[in-house]
């Protein structure tokens, strides 16, 4: 079975799986300085890592990129020139309020479907899609329920494994953990984390914190809304689009008021006492939200900006998080 790789949360894994292909959401490593991209001045480290990961990937049967961020959109131009793997660029609108953009998203899913069929996938049947969606939804529910019981890294890695491999038995009994992590309740907010940057979760917990909300793109903020199981059986594709396009709140949305509404409910509901704001250098979308977030919330906010690469920065990040927690 061909594997289709992607990283954007607005790409529904269920849709790829319904075409008989294996979806795999990748979380890249930080790019080596000598990586295949070449000069990377001004390039977001996550985009750089993704490009390098795709170029060096020998297993993928296809790649899906979205237009959610400008640099990722332009990564498409690089990949079609540097990689032999077929690449699909999916338009994901930034606006969300009107029917026209919702239809555009659905049309793009259908176009993605044609791309997948071109790679050897089969046209999806509604029943197949429904069953796959139910499987994913059950696993997601189980993972989200376990969030309060798992150490932050384990939780993040569970979400990552789910994105990479899809639902499996390992996600069904995940709530049996009775472990309650102690510490100052924290949220981590931002774009996606590269694999190395999962360290920040360990650092926060080692410093006496407890991540009760992983609101990064690779955390629970990047998971779609639960499916309405009644609507799902009637019109699975519509429900899929609604849960992804309507259910994932991101800084890139215009306006992105939904992100703050989502954050407000989670921060209050989980008793968060401090926010770690994680962003990559050259990520304008998240960088621009930092000051606004500080103005918006009464909670203390710690800015962690990183290029995601070296040990010196890791020490700096650790020191800053330790100091932050001392003040809390």
């Amino acid at each position, binding site marked *: 079975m061909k594997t289709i790789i992607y990283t954007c949360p607005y790409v529904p894994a269920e849709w790829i799986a319904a075409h008989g292909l294996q979806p795999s959401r990748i979380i890249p490593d930080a790019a080596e300085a000598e990586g295949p991209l070449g000069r990377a001045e001004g390039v977001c480290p996550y985009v750089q890592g993704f490009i390098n990961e795709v170029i060096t990937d020998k297993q993928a049967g296809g790649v899906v990129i979205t237009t959610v961020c400008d640099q990722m959109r332009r990564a498409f131009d690089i990949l079609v020139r540097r990689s032999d793997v077929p690449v699909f660029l999916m338009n994901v609108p930034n606006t969300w309020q009107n029917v026209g953009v919702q239809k555009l998203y659905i049309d793009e899913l259908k176009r993605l479907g044609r791309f997948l069929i071109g790679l050897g996938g089969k046209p999806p049947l509604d029943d197949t899609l429904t069953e796959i969606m139910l499987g994913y939804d059950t696993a997601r529910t189980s993972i989200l329920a376990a969030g309060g019981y798992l150490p932050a890294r384990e939780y993040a890695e569970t979400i990552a494994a789910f994105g990479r491999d899809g639902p499996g038995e390992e996600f069904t009994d995940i709530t049996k953990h009775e472990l309650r992590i102690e510490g100052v309740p924290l949220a981590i907010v931002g774009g996606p984390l590269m694999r190395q940057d999962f360290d920040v979760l360990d650092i926060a917990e080692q410093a006496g914190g407890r991540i009760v909300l992983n609101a990064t793109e690779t955390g629970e903020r990047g998971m779609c809304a639960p499916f309405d199981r009644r609507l799902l059986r009637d019109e699975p594709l519509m429900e899929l689009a609604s849960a992804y396009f309507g259910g994932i709140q991101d800084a890139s949305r215009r306006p992105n008021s939904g992100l703050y509404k989502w954050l407000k409910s989670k921060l209050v509901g989980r008793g968060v006492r401090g926010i770690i704001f994680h962003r990559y250098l050259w*990520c304008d979308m998240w960088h621009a939200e930092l000051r606004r977030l500080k103005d918006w919330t009464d909670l203390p906010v710690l800015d962690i900006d990183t290029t995601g690469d070296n040990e010196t920065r890791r020490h700096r990040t650790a020191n800053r998080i330790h100091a932050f927690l001392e003040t809390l």
Partner: protein
Amino acid sequence: MSDKPRRITLEEWDLRYEQLQRAGVRQPDYGGLLSRHLEDGDQRLLKLRYDNSAAALRLWNFLLTEEDRLHDARAGGKKLIGTMKDLGTVPVMAYSFDNVVAFYPDGAWWIPCVMELSAGLLSIADSLGIDESFCPVRAMLGAFITGAHFPVPDRLICSVGATCDDFSAIAQRLSSLGHPILWWEIPHRRKPDSNEAAVNLPGGFPAPKCQVEFVKSELTRVKTALEESASEQLDEKKLSAGIKEANQVRRYLAELRHLAFTAELCPLPALEMLIAEMLAIHFCSDRRETIGVLKELLGEVQARVQAGVGILDADAAKIFWVNPVADLQVMNLLEDCGGRICGTEYLFTHALDAIPQDLPPLEALARMALADPMVGSSTDRAERICADIRKLGSEAVLISRIPGASHCALEGEVISEIVQEKFDIPVLEIEVPPVTDSMRPTVRTRLEALVETVKARRKR
């Protein structure tokens, strides 16, 4: 035609102005000494070199009096629309109304240059969390806060989607500061699938018909919002008339660009050409006067070409310039180094190509919007640049990076590779901040090296 064409300083322009006055050259109501704009804090003017024609004087005075025009328009009861990011589409619609004036607050990105950072706009942006890692267009935030550089518009309209992240993020920040924005979606332009209905866009690229339909529906939302603001209906007849006027601007610019880029002797400096091209975006807040300014400029250039005179040596290296510069002085610098502009792609070719007049007007505008080089891929952009190089005979390409701009990090490499695959010509990238003074020697050295390379290759 004016006297012998040459580039002169601001001081020399004052003397020249007296000459023109004595010769009875008519000045528009916004005319006058160029140096008077120094009183507004436009200190960069002291360091620029200007074309010495009366047409250029009119162009500069027109540009530097836009703020007054906006205040006058408001005082005269017109609605002010701040159009953002789409660089040319919405103003065509806005100027089709009787009582609407549209302008780009984005244009504030040149204020740090023109005022040599004295306005403090970038510091204000810093204080709002938009630091130097963003494109200089962040100056727009400061301009909204101070209210000193343009009146706050009655309505803001911003395109988003296939745009640069910097601007989208900055506009969102502006919205969060209490300036509501009507967002409209412009999707990434893609190639039509093999069995998909397609249309040709101005500029030559094809697009799927469904994308045109989508953009048309978004522009319909914009039209409704404008009608609400203007308390005036915009029917097809009015919009078609607006497109016709916009095309007049584009026709003059096309002739101007052709002559400026292909005449044996360069008839008009790069700086004035840049400003003339910029007029196409929102007509510098007066469409009728823009047509007049361009007509006079074109007349001057035609006369110079006919007389076989120009402002640069005949052997100037022919450079194709990609992206607008944040520091206007760099356009002078290219010429000081022995280069001339032979082709430009300042990110708004869609504002220069003729808008189809044989289509329903909203569809024509939708096609224009989709032809935006920022909306398509870097590969498309490179293809367009290559087509122009082939037509114009450019000898080198200079890609001017905009500091912090999200698109500049990756597109330069794609454009460079494609140009070099198709033509055996040098490509150079430089980064141009709003004020280049501290790095002027470096920029100069790189430009000189490019010019020398071009000239050396002629001898091969």
